């Protein structure tokens, strides 16, 4: 919508900067996670979306974050930060400190803020999101629901059960497939027969595809998809071709150096950087860096969260 407005040039410009700031925030927050992990300050696991930030930013910014709903998965930091920007709450969550968005219970894979819900069971969120879309349709809230799925997750039957229902009942839900071509260690070709971007066709669900390399174009495609879902009160399927620059979680990358070098070339953040006025860019970089440093310092200074008062 913004894109199509009269001053589209300036606005595109502003949008690019806005996106850049968000993507950088996500990137650097996740890099902090990896660092904190290396320092032994963070336990468990983190699945970073390094390289895929543009998908989070393009999609979430096409939504109406005041009312719309997001379901996401194990790789949700980007969606979370694009949605609410709460770096401190997220940091506190993964570090188990006071102020954690889910009291340190959920941790990286089980996040909740506002209308955003994530879970660590691949595929299980698809029917939940479908139900949420039905709820909003029944309430006539005008809200739509977006659910983020990975290419590997398209192996789960729950996804097809959900698509069938969403199409049958014409529910306002956007299925977003973040297709990074890999699931943990397994390339897409070893997980799937046929072309994933055709998976929604049999249900009569309209499909949009775009590449995360160009965040602005992706955003534009998403705006169209979201518009369809909201106006027609029907499902849509958005396939985002994207690139996982880092390991699945931590240090478990078995891809060849050549493969890694190839995906490295597809970093949407570096690509977007080129489009931002250098002065602006530096300002943004400084501000993001300060924000994150302050957040880390703040959160690391907080006491560990306690279970007191919990049953």
């Amino acid at each position, binding site marked *: 919508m913004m894109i199509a407005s009269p001053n589209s040039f300036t606005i595109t410009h502003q949008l690019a900067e806005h996106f850049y700031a968000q993507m950088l925030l996500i990137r650097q927050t996740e890099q902090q996670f990896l660092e904190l992990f290396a320092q032994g300050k963070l336990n468990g696991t983190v699945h970073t979306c390094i390289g895929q930030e543009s998908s989070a930013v393009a999609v979430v910014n096409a939504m109406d974050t005041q009312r719309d709903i997001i379901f996401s998965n194990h790789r949700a930091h980007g969606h979370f930060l694009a949605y609410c920007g709460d770096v401190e709450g997220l940091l506190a969550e993964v570090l188990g400190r006071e102020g954690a968005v*889910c009291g340190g*219970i959920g941790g990286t894979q089980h996040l909740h803020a506002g209308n955003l819900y994530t879970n660590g069971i691949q595929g299980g969120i698809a*029917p*939940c999101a*479908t*139900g949420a879309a039905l709820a909003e349709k029944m309430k006539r809230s005008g809200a739509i629901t977006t659910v983020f799925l990975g290419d590997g997750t398209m192996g789960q039957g729950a996804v097809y059960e959900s698509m*069938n229902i969403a199409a049958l009942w014409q529910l306002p839900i956007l299925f977003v497939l973040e297709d990074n071509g890999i699931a943990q260690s397994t390339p897409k070709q070893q997980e799937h027969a046929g072309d994933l971007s055709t998976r929604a066709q049999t249900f009569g669900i309209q499909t949009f595809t775009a590449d995360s390399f160009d965040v602005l174009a992706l955003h534009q495609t998403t705006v169209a998809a979201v518009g369809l879902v909201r106006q027609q009160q029907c499902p849509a399927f958005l396939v985002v071709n994207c690139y996982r620059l880092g390991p699945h979680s931590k240090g478990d990358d078995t891809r060849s150096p050549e493969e890694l070098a190839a995906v490295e070339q597809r970093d949407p953040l570096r690509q977007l950087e080129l489009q931002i006025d250098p002065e602006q860019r530096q300002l943004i970089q400084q501000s993001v860096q300060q924000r994150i440093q302050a957040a880390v310092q703040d959160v690391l200074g907080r006491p560990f969260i306690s279970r007191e008062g919990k049953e």
Partner: protein
Amino acid sequence: MSQQLTNLESLRSALQSAMADDETVVVFGEDILDPYGGAFKVTKGLSTAFPNRVFTTPICEGAIVGMANGLALRGMRPVAELMFGDFITLAADQLINHAAKFPAMYNGRVTLPLVVRTPMGGGRGYGPTHSQSLERMFCGVPHLSVVAPTIFHDAGKLLRAAIASDGPVVFIENKLLYPLRQQLHSTATIQHDVLDPEAEYPTVRLRNFGAGDSADVTLIANGGVSRFLPSLLERLADEEIRLQAVLPSVLSPLPPIAPLAAAAADSGRVVIAEEGIATNGWGAELAARLYESCMGRLACPIVRIGAMPTVIPAAKHLEDEILPSETTILNAILKVLS
């Protein structure tokens, strides 16, 4: 006293009134639209009365409960029907890793008012995949309740309580109880009272003897096996055996143990009966808790009665050998008395 409702009528009118009272209540399931009204007809009439809030679904038990989870997260009060309780295995992930997880893992910042209703139990010759009592799988799952009416409970009231609850509830309906009339009052022989009338899911006590006496035997039972009790209580009264039957309506988490333990200790002889397999069943936890609480006050080991640990045969006469009956419960009672 007016004629009591059948279990089925009670449940059906509870759904009707719940939908009438609260427009966030929505009902889902396979084949539940009128005129069919569901495989067991509990939802009959609902889709006519509330056409926009009753949904017949495709055959996909996982997504049925998953959708209900999404609705519940977004402020609705979904009531999902699984056509046969045996299919709850297909919804296990949505119940255990979603419904029972969301509120707690989001640190209490969401509620999940979900009811999954489903008929369990055998006795109809439906065979191995349509006759089980699988509620035991969900007993002990934290943040999930398992509720099961007996014919001595107001099933509809329990269902209303489940719908009003802010957490997920698996609501077990025994198939053979549907046509039976609820027995909510005392009769000439059977004293009916409620141990905890204020409880969300109360525990009923039945006695075939006067208030002053203490029991010879305590039977703790749930759900479907309650249908044997009217005859059993009468029969034992004839033989001057004082039986008290304690019938919790919530199977998990167990109701407070003290009143159950008091009843157990009162007689010192205890039988636990359920239709599901007794091994690792509902009664295993109950027995362990009773032993803990009644140390030294039990005259003999608790006898647990349930289905034999094998598949439930389709042939009726074979099925009868596998499932608990009035006779197996009676024999257990006689055993603890001897």
